[in-house]
């Protein structure tokens, strides 16, 4: 099972957190900090797997951490031994491709200002820690169906949102 999915930027700020096991808010932040510490030490030449010492008080023994670094963002998946390392790497790629379809050349700012959309896309891919769909096209089309529903419900607001999106927020 996937235990958690996190997106953290190069400065350790969380851009998406999704925990499929319950942790208190405090513990969640601790995990983010600890993971960032581990991940930020890695070089580009390093492999995509993280070693957890036996004495970690946050992660239990049966935890594998798999991450990928894209531009300013770390995509980090914490999984247990029932997941295959290499397929999780592919899954991260799927996630990024889906985000790319949604935002067109996705960048950190997209994630910051449209965190809910990122969640919705993720929900189409992983559900409760189990993988639901691995095809970016299907993920995106399912996501679009729901968006249309939302737009149909409130044409005015969605029009506004569209305008907001075109005037991309400056940093």
């Amino acid at each position: 099972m996937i235990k958690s999915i996190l997106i953290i930027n190069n400065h350790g700020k969380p851009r998406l957190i999704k925990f499929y096991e319950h942790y208190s808010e405090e513990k969640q932040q601790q995990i983010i900090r600890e993971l960032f510490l581990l991940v930020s030490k890695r070089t580009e030449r390093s492999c995509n797997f993280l070693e957890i010492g036996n004495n970690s008080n946050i992660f239990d023994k049966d935890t594998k951490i798999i991450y990928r670094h894209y531009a300013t963002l770390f995509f980090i998946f914490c999984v247990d031994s029932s997941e295959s390392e290499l397929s999780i790497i592919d899954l991260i790629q799927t996630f990024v491709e889906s985000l790319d379809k949604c935002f067109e050349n996705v960048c950190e700012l997209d994630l910051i200002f449209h965190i809910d959309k990122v969640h919705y896309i993720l929900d189409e891919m992983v559900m409760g820690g189990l993988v639901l769909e691995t095809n970016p096209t299907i993920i995106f089309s399912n996501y679009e169906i729901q968006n249309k529903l939302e737009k149909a419900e409130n044409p005015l607001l969605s029009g506004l949102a569209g305008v907001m999106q075109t005037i991309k927020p400056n940093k």
Partner: protein
Amino acid sequence: MFERTLVDLIRGIRNHKKNETKFINQCINEIKEELKGDMQKKTVAVQKLTYIQMLGFDISWASFKIVEVMSCNKFSSKRIGYLAASQSFNEGTDVIVLATHQIRKDFLSSNQSEAYLALNCLSNICTTDLARELANDILTLLSTQKTHILKRAITVLYKIFLRYPESLRPAFPKLREKLDDPEPSVVSCSVNVICELARRNPKNYLPLAPVLFRILTNTTNNYWMLIKIVKLFAALTPHEPRLGKKLIDPLTNIINSSPSVSLLYECIQTCITGMSDHIPLMKLCISKLRTLIEHNDQNLKYLGLLALNNIMKIHPKAVSEHRDLVLNCLEDDDISIRLRALDLLPGMTSKKNIGDIVFKLLDHLDNAEGQYKEQIIEKIIELCSMGTYQFITDFEWYINILVKLSQIQDSIHGKLIASQLLDVVIRVKIVRAYSTRQMIELLKNPKLMSNPTEGGMCEVLYAAAWIVGEFSGYVNRPIDALEAFLQPRVCVLPSHIQSVYMLNSLKVFSHACAKANGDKIPSLDDDDEEEEAQEEEDQNEITHEIVQECLEIIKSRLTIFTHSIYLNVQERACLINELLSFYTVTKEQGNNISKELISLFTEQLNPVGPKAQKKVPIPEGLDLDEWINDPKHQEPIEEDEDDDIFNTSTSSHQKKHHKHHRGGYDGDDDEDDETNSSHSGHSSSNFNRHPIDIQRQKEERLRKQANNPYMLGGKVSKKLSTNDPENIPVVQLTGDLGHLHVGASSNRPMPSKGSKKTKKHYTIDTTTEMPEGAKESDDEDEKDNKYKNDALSNINLSEPLTASDVLHTSRHRTDIIKEKEREMAMLAKKNAKLSPKSPPSTANYSEVTSPEIAPAKKATKKAAAGSNPPPPPTAKKSSKKPAATSSTTTTTKSTQAAAAVVAPPPVIVKKVLKTILDDDNFKITCEILKVSPSNETDNNQIKLTMKVQNKTDEDMSDVSISLKNPAEQCVSIKNSGEIGVLEADASTTHTELLNVVNVLNSQELQFTLLASPSSSPSITNQLSIDLPFSFFIVATKLPKDKFAEILQKSGQVSAMDSTKITGQSLTMPLVIEKLAQQLSIEVVQAHPNGQTASFYAKTTQNHHIAMLVKEKDGNISFDIKSPQSLLNQILVKEIAQLTFSSK
């Protein structure tokens, strides 16, 4: 007032980088206000809260508002609400119960997107309560045709199982079905869930192996699913060796040809866990792993090493061929890869190359830091100590390595190095002289004392001090050693190390004295290397002047320790002080007590087995669960107890002495240490009383016990005689503390009756001390299974479903109230025996309707609306009523056919257990299961499980059971085939999966049983099984307008029949209840006077059934309308079999 949107909030946070928390707190206050506003405001507020939660703020206070937003009709708001819930709700969120109904409503919604939201959210926040409440609805959802909903429903099942493990058994057949689904993505989701389940209890899922195998061999492109299946097989194969053989071919195929590296890799992993004895396959795996490790991709390199490590545990030799590869990886830039390569080293090491490898590692150590550094230290020690130092040829070299390791700053491995030093020195006698010299250097080294922390590198000093003291026979310059021991900086060390320093300084001094006097030193007597040591000493004669100097040093420096803040240090320092004063005094009197001093420390030390304590066998006849003393009569033994209290308290005190006296490395396990000390520590003769004293006391105690009426006679005295209590340290050490004999007379060691251990001497002493009678086996290492006590993994799926395997179904409160009302009404009616005049009953269905709604009816309607599907009888209830609905079995000879029909829970599984044959030859019981009544495709499938028992005392051959019904009635889809030989008194099961083609003419299933007894002519038996028609009725709640519509449409219900039940004084509520329970026929409308009601139901083949039931003087008349009179007749028959016994 203008509210912030989410974007405003995010912008604000970005603009307040300096005081983010303050800004957010301000926003939270605004949000609290907004949550009081209208739904639009609330939605935005909840959206903002979700964002704030990500930053680490607790938003549980807003849980109720989140539920409100979740329940909003607008999809956009609902979506936001569900997201917030997913992110913040947990098992402790109490308002979750309020959301139960909303979640159910949403995932059953016709709007797929709403269903997605609800299912997704449920998978994140599923609590035990939610799981119990919703399990049933999720199962119903599994019959949907909508792929995307189905996928989600399957996935969410896993969370339901996790929180509500009881649901696994009833729900599993449905999940199993999904493995055969034509849609690959549905199969994939089912495999995902089963894979998770199988990790917990693989045995349960072995029966799935054929299906999984088929999927494995038939799927080519869905790598995600294939990987999961291969992983699943890895969990299954250890439990079924034949499976491994079967998998060899397909897996070899994949390994050789698959374009997907991830699949290839998982196949290799599965081969390693399940098929490691297959040498060609293992060779293939290793060669593939080699290509992975040589690959440029760091990930593949890493995983390759990981898998290689797994192979190494099984085939170390095969892996050691690839030493070059692994050693190369030690040079990799990536620490993860280096660490994995380190793991592989133990398999690569030999006598020849250990030196090179260790030097390489030491090299790495110079630049390493943090975790990597610790790992290298650990690894060096692991390599060297492997197989009790089997690869080490030069122990001086190893001591040097350990000394080198001890120079590393800030390592956590001080204790590890210390215990290695002790172990080597104790086991390898030849290295003692050398080590002692090295240890003195270590003691003088200021580096180790620079920053002492408990557990840090200074722990090495503990070992060093002890070695120097224990083997002070090899110390040539005692002054040096003593100066090191008593330097003022020692005060900064942890107290346990200081304690060791104290006692060992005394050892050094004692030895010096003895040597100066030319006394024989017992400990060196039998050592081969003694001469050598002696020789060295000769060059460096210890004179009385040196001893005197030593005395001065100790006396002058001991003061800081006699004032130490640590009790144990102070105690020892004082003891030494006193002893030395005594020494000086006696010396002045002309007596030299150096002999006595040295005799304090003469006993040899042997290594003690790591599990020695655990392996002490329980003495015969000792039952620790048994009361030794009768608990009721404890007071009278007071006298005895007083004695005991004294004994234990003093002895524990002494034990402490004893332990430190021995000075062995004091690990974490104090208990172990104490026992060890009693067996193999220094002779503690000085603390013990004369054996005659003990003997006398023992006799006296035995006599006392014999006279004491409250002592358990036989057993205790027997125990005493067979197992001397003197063996137990507690008793051995009984004695008055005051007597500290230092005189020569008490010098002889205790005759140790108990410790019969033989003390052996080896060059490398690999033997360890074990208690007598300890088992040799190593089976005490229990496999650490993290799921051992997990409820879900304890569920057994191999047993057939029983009546108790019913899912919880929520019942509306009013339902229960209504039921009570009915019971009350029944009682009242029975008691009063009134026969009120019935109002003119109407024969027309449509006229039943009454304009005003009576309270009772209101309740019924509410109940109907509140719980969908209708409340089935609980398991408990149905078992209370072993009703004989269809008690007539048409078996040829069955006379006592105890056909118990368990009122079928109408939702998931309908089940009936019947004895269909019980004659001289056979007894056959049959369990009839109706699985998945709501799935359109196999809605009329019946599963029969017949248990056939051979009652004769001869074997039967050619036993077979075959279906006789014509194909237009029902067909057998799958059966377990011919039974074949059934031995005498044996029983077997025959299963049959039937599809009922026409539900109207298949009330009786006909089977032929054939068998050939070995000595008599063959037997043919006709079996017939009544199928309860309720199997084919679908409980349907119908609104009254729809009902009227059906009645009006001609042809829908054209045939009409009537029947009556008389003489039972029945009431309408009871009839309503029983019809729903036993026949799944639901009430549409009941007249408020409680005398007329209309009912509706539908068969699985969509025949409408309408009924009008009238009650008059406790007699009930039924008017049945349906499309065919055949159906009416069946229903008449079923109604006649209804049971109304209320208790």
